């Protein structure tokens, strides 16, 4: 069968590359069509001749391009007026900014505070506006350029990711696929995607989600019919599950410049969107740790791993590049805090990162404000902690932050202040934390079909099953006879 993936960035395939590879290994022709003009395959994708990359249309080619974006971004903004997003100022501001940008072709801006103007509009009135915008979506026709693209590819299934960027054009691919009788699916890209991005403006035939939380989100937040949803687990962590430490504790501590005798606490940086002023917070955090009455905590080695998207701002002027002895993985280390036992170390990888794995593996406890790497820490079985920071709007102001919290069935211990946080860390350094709860969370959140069950095969199965409906329908795409006399 022919499977066509459309991704807005080819790099996004890293979250399901094993599923793509598996489909090809099963004999299917897989085309990865990126909307960012990137066609360079890497890793498991590069070594399989049945996988090819190409460029997909970035936007609609007709008059509806800007208009469709306006309609969708307005609807995306509207979702953040709902009372469930009352505290989500950050998400609302982002959606508002994008909406204004779409109307003015980015020529005009309004202060973010204006995103709050309609916040108290009653739900019933919001719903009426949403119904109107949903109706306008039905008025948007399939785009002829995308029709032509799909017709030329003749796929048996179309798979899209991430689909839910605010005002994204991928809804138009679903529209065209439906018009052409091609079954379509959406792969949820990450744990926050269904609650903090845009809406699914055109519902595909299948929505492949990580877990029951995303299933509920798909139904409640996106009005997805339940029968279209397939719970597969999170394929992006399969490789991470397979990893083993690539360094001994002594080797790791030498690379990081930390004392192997002292416990290590790792701080995982969040994205700039979640925590815009994180360096100031980390400075306060280090000071709080050092002032602890618990000598183990006060003297612990502290490793700060910046978020991969913003690591450059963290290092001191004099940083050192280090390489893992056997695998050759590279990391950069520096001491910007004037504290000999506090280092910043990062690596350029974003997925299945040896440096991240080893960092977490050799840590006694993990701390973060709100970041995906907290999930990787749970996979390795380490206790994870967070502390409320009023400057980090991406904590309580997002829905997905709460999913990882212990109080909500997750694995992350929440502290409301530094004293409570320090007490939690002291317990963790003493080995007192809920290992079973961490494992239970990982199973529920990442591998709902079993901790030892890789997810990529389930994703591949779901896509195969979808493509089979196309074959079964025996729908033959008509050849393009444009221009034929």
């Amino acid at each position, binding site marked *: 069968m022919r499977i066509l993936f459309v991704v807005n960035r080819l790099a996004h395939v890293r979250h399901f590359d094993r599923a793509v590879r598996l489909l090809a290994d099963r004999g299917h022709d897989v085309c990865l069509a990126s909307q960012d003009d990137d066609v360079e395959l890497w890793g498991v994708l590069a070594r399989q001749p049945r996988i090819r990359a190409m460029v997909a249309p970035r936007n609609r080619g007709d008059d509806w391009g*800007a208009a469709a974006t306006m309609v969708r971004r307005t609807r995306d903004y509207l979702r953040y007026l709902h009372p469930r997003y009352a505290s989500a100022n950050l998400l609302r501001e982002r959606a508002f900014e994008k909406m204004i940008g779409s109307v003015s072709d980015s020529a005009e801006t309004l202060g973010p505070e204006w995103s709050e103007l309609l916040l108290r*509009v009653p739900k*019933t009135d919001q719903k009426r506006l949403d119904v109107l915008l949903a109706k306008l979506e039905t008025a948007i026709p399939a785009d002829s350029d995308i029709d032509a693209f799909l017709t030329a590819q003749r796929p048996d299934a179309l798979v899209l990711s991430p689909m839910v960027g605010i005002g994204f054009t991928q809804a138009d691919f679903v529209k065209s696929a439906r018009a052409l009788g091609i079954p379509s699916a959406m792969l949820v890209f990450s744990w926050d995607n269904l609650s903090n991005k845009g809406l699914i403006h055109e519902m595909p035939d299948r929505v492949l989600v990580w877990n029951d939380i995303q299933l509920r989100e798909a139904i409640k937040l996106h009005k997805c019919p339940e029968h279209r949803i397939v719970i597969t687990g999170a394929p992006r962590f399969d490789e991470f599950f397979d990893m083993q430490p690539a360094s001994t504790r002594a080797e790791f501590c030498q690379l990081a410049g930390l004392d192997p005798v002292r416990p290590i606490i790792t701080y995982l940086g969040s994205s700039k969107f979640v925590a815009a002023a994180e360096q100031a917070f980390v400075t306060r955090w280090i000071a709080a740790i050092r002032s602890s009455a618990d000598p183990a905590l006060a003297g612990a080695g502290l490793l700060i791993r910046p978020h991969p998207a913003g690591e450059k701002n963290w290092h001191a002027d004099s940083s050192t590049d280090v390489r893992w002895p056997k695998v050759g993985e590279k990391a950069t280390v520096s001491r910007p805090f004037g504290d000999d036992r506090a280092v910043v170390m990062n690596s350029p990888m974003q997925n299945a990162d040896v440096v991240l794995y080893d960092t977490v593996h050799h840590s006694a406890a993990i701390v973060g404000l709100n970041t995906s790497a907290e999930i990787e820490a749970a996979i390795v079985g380490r206790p994870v902690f967070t502390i409320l920071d009023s400057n980090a709007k991406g904590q309580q102001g997002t829905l997905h932050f709460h999913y990882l919290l212990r109080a909500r069935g997750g694995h992350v211990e929440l502290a409301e202040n530094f004293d409570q946080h320090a007490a939690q860390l002291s317990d963790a350094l003493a080995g007192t934390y809920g290992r079973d709860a961490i494992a239970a969370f990982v199973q529920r959140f990442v591998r709902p079909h079993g901790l030892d069950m890789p997810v990529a095969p389930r994703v591949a199965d779901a896509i195969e099953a979808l493509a089979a409906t196309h074959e079964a329908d025996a729908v033959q795409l008509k050849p393009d006879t444009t221009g034929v006399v």
Partner: protein
Amino acid sequence: MRILFQLPRTNILRHFDSVVLALADAGHDVTIATPGKSNDFPLPQAVTSHPRIATRICPEVREDAWKDAATDFRTLVDCGHYLESPFFEAEKLRSRAFRAVAQAMTGDKTRHLTARCPTCNTKFVDGDFGNLRPSLGDAAAQRLHNLARLVEDAIPSDPGREHFLQEEAPDVVLVSPLVRFGSEQSDWVKSAKALGIPVGFPVFSWDNLTTKGVIHVEPDRIFVWNAVQKREATEYYGIPPEKVVVTGAPRFDSFMELRPSVDRAAYCRSLNLDAAAPIVTYLCSSEFVAGHEVAFVEQWIEEIRTDPRLTSCNVIVRPHPRSVRQWSEVDLARHGRVGLSLSRVLNADQSLYDALYHSAAVVGLNTSAQIEAGILGKPVLTLLAPGFEKGQQGTLHFRYLLREEGGFVELANDLAEHTAHLARAVTGGYDVDEIRRAVERFIRPEGWDRPATPILANAITDMALEKPSVVRRWLHSATRGGR
């Protein structure tokens, strides 16, 4: 020829009854189709008794999947119109547009959209959102126009209206006023076009193309009063000039045929006025334009009377026909030589004619009756009145009647200047020919002696002849085939 005139309410016909009668007298069958509101005004007896004029109840709203969505979307587009540069100063109009959106979004006139200003915490209710002075740049306006066009093109013709039109099988469809917020009448234009029936839009009044909603679906013809409206139709709504026909304003034809019903002495006696002193008539504006005008008018009377040249003049106050209630308990007698001319007649009002006829000068803030005053060749004056800026300078049509814009209304920037204008006017210090020429341009651009009624009637039938109705052609051919 079969002509279907679709109106949302019967009272709209008051501006076109002469045209309907002219068409019927010429042998055409005219059907007046309205949704049949329980509180509709009765149609004039001349219309209802005419053998070639029929009335029918027609659908009011769509019943298909676009039922609410089409109206809600159009209301939003109408509101967006007031965010564009020509309307930056039109705060009152913008507020009304926002109020229309609030009503559409709440679906209920008893509930309101409220919010607090994120910067100053002021509470906004419905139309107050318009006070924010939001504005769109040209790029944004163009994008919204494009969106509106694309969505409107995607809204299908209403099956209910198509069914009605197929039953009626008219040669031509007329709709007015068309530009109400959220205009459901757009669907009549759409359905007529879908069926190949020529459709025309006679503009209801002088302010309609700048104070209401937009033309969502382009009719085959727009019948406008004058060159000003033709420019409005082309500039603000992108209507091709060849589709705009200047006919004049038929609503004034019957007014122009009126004659005074009483002589000056009798008239002054009826209102306790001094027949030897000049009369100044104050024409009140609508509540939308001027709100509660009583206090201002009383102050105006006192102020002008302080001028020795005007101390002895009579004053007639003519409340707006739709706002007579605010005058019901007002005692103007204490001012001396002040009469109140109350009437609820909206067109060709004899009491208005008499008041204007016997007046030496006329004053008003911003009202259609200023045009009637101009028809009678009277000097018409206005002044920029504190508190009424939004209903005057805040509308575009206010400027159209001003002398400095080619009109006939003398504008004063304050009361002192106005008093001077008025004193000069009551002593004959004005050019009646200049007033006539300006009025002619505005309501009878084809010539003072050429009533607009037959011009519009002919334009309607010409349109049908130029583009015969597909439905009628089909019926004719089917009938012939049957024989």
